[in-house]
């Protein structure tokens, strides 16, 4: 049996490195023994899998509740309270909630990107359905649709960065500040365009500047490894 020169503990024969301090185990006496014998490890080697949890029952219950609500309101609007199309927002909200929550309950392995795309498109269709209650649909095409589209694009980018680049607290904060800055600029830009006023940034420029400064600070912290580790330790996160 070998000893760790750093920690002073005895190490089980199956260990090639001290698990406490990562000092490699080099014991010339044991090398010859190991060639001839198979060392049985005290722990199993293969990894088990966590059983997936099915939310199918909850999905079915939600589908029934939302479906019956939409149907009841639709029928009431059609046959009883016919003065205007008041059931459109209700039916639309039921469809929207179903698309937001239920697909992942029935198909847990559905990719995040498809889920996000479906949710975004359903929000856009719901907003379009609301134009049936208004005199004009200009507000949808010139204001609502561009803002929703940019939010969808930005959140898709957030999702991709979170899943494939980094999901640490600092990285997530960086993505969010960048997204908030860009979104505010775009929203003000669209508002000015909708009202026909000069395309001049005011409040969004301030928000963008603040977000930019914070993002630069976060990038500099994240790019220096020692600084990153020090910030995490000192701020207890």
């Amino acid at each position: 049996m070998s000893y760790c020169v750093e920690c002073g503990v005895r190490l089980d024969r199956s260990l090639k490195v001290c698990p406490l301090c990562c000092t490699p185990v080099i014991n010339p006496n044991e090398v010859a023994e190991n060639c001839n014998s198979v060392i049985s490890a005290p722990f199993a080697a293969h990894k088990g899998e966590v059983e997936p949890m099915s939310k199918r029952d909850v999905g079915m219950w939600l589908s029934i509740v939302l479906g019956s609500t939409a149907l009841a309101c639709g029928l009431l609007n059609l046959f009883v309270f016919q003065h205007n199309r008041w059931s459109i927002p209700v039916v639309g909200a039921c469809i929207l909630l179903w698309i937001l929550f239920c697909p992942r309950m029935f198909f847990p392995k559905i990719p995040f990107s498809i889920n996000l795309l479906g949710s975004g498109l359903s929000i856009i269709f719901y907003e379009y359905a609301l134009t049936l209650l208004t005199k004009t649909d200009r507000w949808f095409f010139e204001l609502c649709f561009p803002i929703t589209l940019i939010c969808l694009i930005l959140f898709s980018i957030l999702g991709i960065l979170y899943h494939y680049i980094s999901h640490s607290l600092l990285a997530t904060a960086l993505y969010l500040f960048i997204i908030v800055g860009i979104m505010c600029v775009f929203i003000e830009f669209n508002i000015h365009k909708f009202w026909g006023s000069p395309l001049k940034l005011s409040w969004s420029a301030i928000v963008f500047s603040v977000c930019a400064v914070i993002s630069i600070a976060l990038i500099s912290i994240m790019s220096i490894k020692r600084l990153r580790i020090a910030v995490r330790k000192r701020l207890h996160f």
Partner: protein
Amino acid sequence: MSKTIHAPKQEWYPLDLSAIVYPTLQRKDFSSVYRLSVLLKEEVQPEVLQKAIEMTLPRFPTYKVAMRKGLFWRFLEPNYRPGPFVQPDVRNFCMPMSFKTKGRYLLRFYYHGCRISLEAHHSLGDGNGGMHLLNTLTAVYLRLLGHDIPNQYLVLDINQEPHPEELEDAYMRYSNSKFCPPRPMEKTYRLRGTKEPFFTFQVIHGNMATSEVLEVAALYKCTLTEYLNAVLLYALLQKQKDDKPFRELPVKIAMPVNLRRFFPSKTLRNFITMVYPSIDPRLGDYKFEEIIKQVHHYMHYYINDKFLRGDITTNAATQRNPFIRVVPLFIKDFVVKNFYKRVQDRNSSAGLTNMGVLKVPDEMLPHVERFDIYMGIPYSSRTNCAIISYNNILTINFASCIKETDVEKYFFQKLVQDGIKVTIESNRNH
């Protein structure tokens, strides 16, 4: 003629006071599962082990159950589905346990080489109850192999009906204090580290002679538990010093106390409460002897029947409150989860459980090498420590889901500095 008391056949069991919290905290990367293992001196035969499980489990009706959800509370229902089945062991044990798969059982049995392992969800019972099950199972297994093992110590008679006390919620029996002592909650130092990929469970396991540890504890004029608590606090203080935080925070250990020592009960379900020995480095630099003194006096002050009775009465008062009883379960879940995440989990830096000295019938001694206990994956990124002693072998198991091993390193280095010979095993791949 002695009258044998039998527990009435029950259609369902309410969750005991501790058990209410565990299913609520269930997440896909956290499950209140602990593991108990016995290392035999011969290879395990899985078919014989499966037969032993089928013979043993009916003796433990509160373990052969499924979790169900009611409108206001969860409850346990007898489970007549086939199983649980013995499986080959896995590297990442204490995996989350779904309530709706694998026959709805909240138990798992594994074998690997000479080791038999039992994993149980904490809503079934604590380590004491689980150890009764494991010891009885081991005795039945050895009997099937032809050895004669009597029913002594933690080995129960599988031909006997369970005693009603074994199924009771002992908290309710003893929660009758007139005053509930206040519970100071404060932010404590929380260990941070690089999280391992999902689902990786890292274990570092230290074996040593119990007599050596007792000698060292005697030199410091304290008990074994106090000594090991002090060593863990010392390791955590060292780690916090290395982090060089802007401001230091108190270091606290969450230590479960077996209430059966103070309140007689044969219950096999949960009957524990938590105490929190701590050191506040903001008051100054503590030497190791000072840490031991602090822990020693803390234990004497808090671990007595009066204080503990008040503590469990505080917990029981919540369950007895008529307004809380009628709150729907999903609201209770939301409140309990958030309370645990924002308050309870932040109230300690690490967990330490000491099962104490385990005794088995003399006829079992030649067949059993040692016992191990592993606390499950911690709720937040930190490390948990579990201690058990058997036949002069003290085993200390650290379980964590972070890459760094600084706390474990300081802990075992301190033991070695005090003259204790430690042997390390691990499933970490560096």
